[in-house]
């Protein structure tokens, strides 16, 4: 009886530890990619063991090119030897494959809303914030208009909620999470306040809550490195524009 119990316990433990069962999870990322960060957060939130492969964008590994021949970008998730690319696609895959700590809601309409907001973030918010960042003077003023409109929509969506996912961090929080880190950095570089605590109180509060949440906080890329990187990107864009 004792031996049987022992073996059952061992099997149960082995099933719990995915690596012993041979379920290999590997994430190809760069140190700074906000898209790859979404995957780090998702894997951590679900307690999934994984290996990390850091890529140098200027010198992409043969593996990356093999696993994402179409876009040749990070992130790529490798699960049991099969690659998945595109961060939001990877998030959905992770959510469907590992059921603990669900990222998307259960109700189909709420799921649709989550997908809508994630898409809004990538299609509209990201580009509009970037426009503000890489422009100067009057052009920058003009770029602020659509950026602020987009942020106001996010502000509305947070009404009555701590996170976009409700009481806990969910799919939309991970998709928009880059805001919580990048906005502050860009504001510092550009010397312009984009998310004003008075004009956008809920979004401000969310950036704080999300940014300080344990798993999220532990994984932000090095601030100094980010400042340097984005300063350089901004300078390069100005140089190209003035040619």
């Amino acid at each position, binding site marked *: 009886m004792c031996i049987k119990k022992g073996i059952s316990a061992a099997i149960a433990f082995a099933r719990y530890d995915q690596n012993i069962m041979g379920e290999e999870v590997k994430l190809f990322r760069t140190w700074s990619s906000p898209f790859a960060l979404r995957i780090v957060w998702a894997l951590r939130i679900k307690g999934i063991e994984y290996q990390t492969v850091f890529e140098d964008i200027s010198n992409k590994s043969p593996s990356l090119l093999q696993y994402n021949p179409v876009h040749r970008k990070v992130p790529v998730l490798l699960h049991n030897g099969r690659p998945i690319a595109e961060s939001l696609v990877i998030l959905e895959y992770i959510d469907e494959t590992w059921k603990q700590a669900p990222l998307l809601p259960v109700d189909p309409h709420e799921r*649709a809303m989550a997908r809508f907001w994630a898409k809004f973030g990538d299609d509209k918010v990201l580009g509009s914030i970037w426009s503000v960042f890489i422009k100067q003077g009057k052009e920058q003023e003009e770029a602020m208009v659509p950026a602020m409109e987009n942020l106001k929509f996010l502000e509305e969506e947070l009404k009555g909620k701590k996170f976009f996912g409700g009481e806990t961090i969910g799919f939309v929080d991970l998709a928009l999470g880059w805001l919580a880190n990048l906005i502050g950095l860009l504001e510092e570089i550009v010397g312009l306040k984009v998310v004003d605590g008075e004009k956008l109180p809920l979004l401000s509060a969310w950036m704080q809550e999300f940014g300080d949440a344990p798993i999220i906080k532990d994984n932000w890329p090095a601030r100094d490195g980010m400042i340097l990187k984005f300063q350089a990107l901004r300078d390069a864009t100005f140089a190209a524009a003035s040619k």
Partner: protein
Amino acid sequence: MASSSVADQEGQVMLLGFWFSPFVKRVEWALKFKGIEYDYVEEDLTNKSTLLLTSNPIHMRVPVLIHNGNPIAESLVIIEYIDETWKQNPILPQDPYERAMARFWANFIEQKVTESTREALVSQGEQQEKIVKELKEAIEVVEGEAKAKLNDKTLFFGGGNGVGYVDIVLGWTCNWMETIEEVGGFKVLDPESQPQFHKWMANFREVTFVKPTLAPKEKLVEYFRMVRPARLGLVANK
């Protein structure tokens, strides 16, 4: 005929659309594929209804699906909603990895084919040449996928079971691409270098729930000719 369980789930299904829009057509194909009854409301895009503006305040555009009073916008989001709400005739595969592949290709089509076609239409000269080159390359990738996945027994990307998510997302090319080429003054379609893609388009056109929905070329061209000058005007005035 719809089974009673389908009718129970349906509640009220309303689609706000515009006859010309390929994005609306996608949603219609998804609904028809599953045999879902719906009320169709034709919007006047120059005079958008209050219903449209309140249902989709962020983008203020069609398609919008309203199910039991709940609005959903963005064609790909709507299609996934339809697939999760009505279980018959699955659009996406069941297996998570296959689903990821389908979503990956849908994204690729949207970013590299659909969006690029839109840009090519409203651009001119050097800018257009650049975009058309990228669009051609994207279609080459699609051709590669068609070559790898399709054969005499598997006509569609949905697999042996027939059409699926990727087909519905790519489907607009089978009727709108030629028209856009003509009006936009560029060429990307080439039956010789894209034989599998052309075969796929021909097969998709013939799908029972697709065929009756395709507007004749003359009607599309007429509408496009109206729109392109206006769009270019908008771009030039920025």
